[in-house]
């Protein structure tokens, strides 16, 4: 068993599968607790590092998806 962090988005709970830091911004990759097919990416707000907001554009989605493959010792299985 392992401990995973849970974040609630729009009244639904998600597991943080992975977190990647890029230029001071944290990108988190979320998987629905009740529905593993419900996946999304969020990023930390520049004003509040504990507040996570939607990505702003398709270009940012692309950047985040590339970051998924970046090695991250903290969260990699």
């Amino acid at each position: 068993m392992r401990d995973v962090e849970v974040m609630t988005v729009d009244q639904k709970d998600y597991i943080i599968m992975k977190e990647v830091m890029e230029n001071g911004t944290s990108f988190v990759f979320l998987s629905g607790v009740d529905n593993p097919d419900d996946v999304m990416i969020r990023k930390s707000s520049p004003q509040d590092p504990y507040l996570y907001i939607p990505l702003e554009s398709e270009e940012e989605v692309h950047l985040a998806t590339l970051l998924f493959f970046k090695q991250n010792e903290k969260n990699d299985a």
Partner: protein
Amino acid sequence: MGEDEKQELLDKELVEIEAKLAARSMSGSPSRRNPNRKMKMTYRDYRKRLIAFGVSISVATGLLIGLYNSHIRKMSDENALKMIRNDFKESVMANIGDSPEERADYLRSAGEFNRNLYLMYDAIGSKATNDVLEHTYYGSLDEYLKAHHWDNPNEWSSDMLTILLVQSDINQKQSELNQMTEEHQTDMKADATTYGGAK
């Protein structure tokens, strides 16, 4: 189901996954994170989710095309190679499993769509996977790349494919392939015995 129908279904699935992930990631309300809020999860469930997420992400980026067009063209060959080897191949393979047992387990449990993506990942590191792909409906790695339009010279260079196919551990992969082949042959013999085919 014919080849065209299979490809059509796969293409449809790719588009749907990409659109779903992008739309979901760009909508909704801000959320406050609490690092102390945890739950327990089995390692197996976590790994399964990570694989599923990796597949979704891979599709959303257009997999290698996304990497190539967005980043690698701007890099030197040395850096591009480093990125593929370190940031892409290794992390993807680590998510899927890095022991022959884990990979075999994944291949057994994965659906056809995921299994083919897995084989694509593995092909990045091993020409030997081409032999495995012969047993899928793609027939070969070339056909797999063609099916995803990664053989288009405008999108993809032969140098890039060469880079992708360069790998240092082909002997290890070949060994794994041999092991899988032996297991497959053993299974076939067992099936033949079970169903009265063996003499």
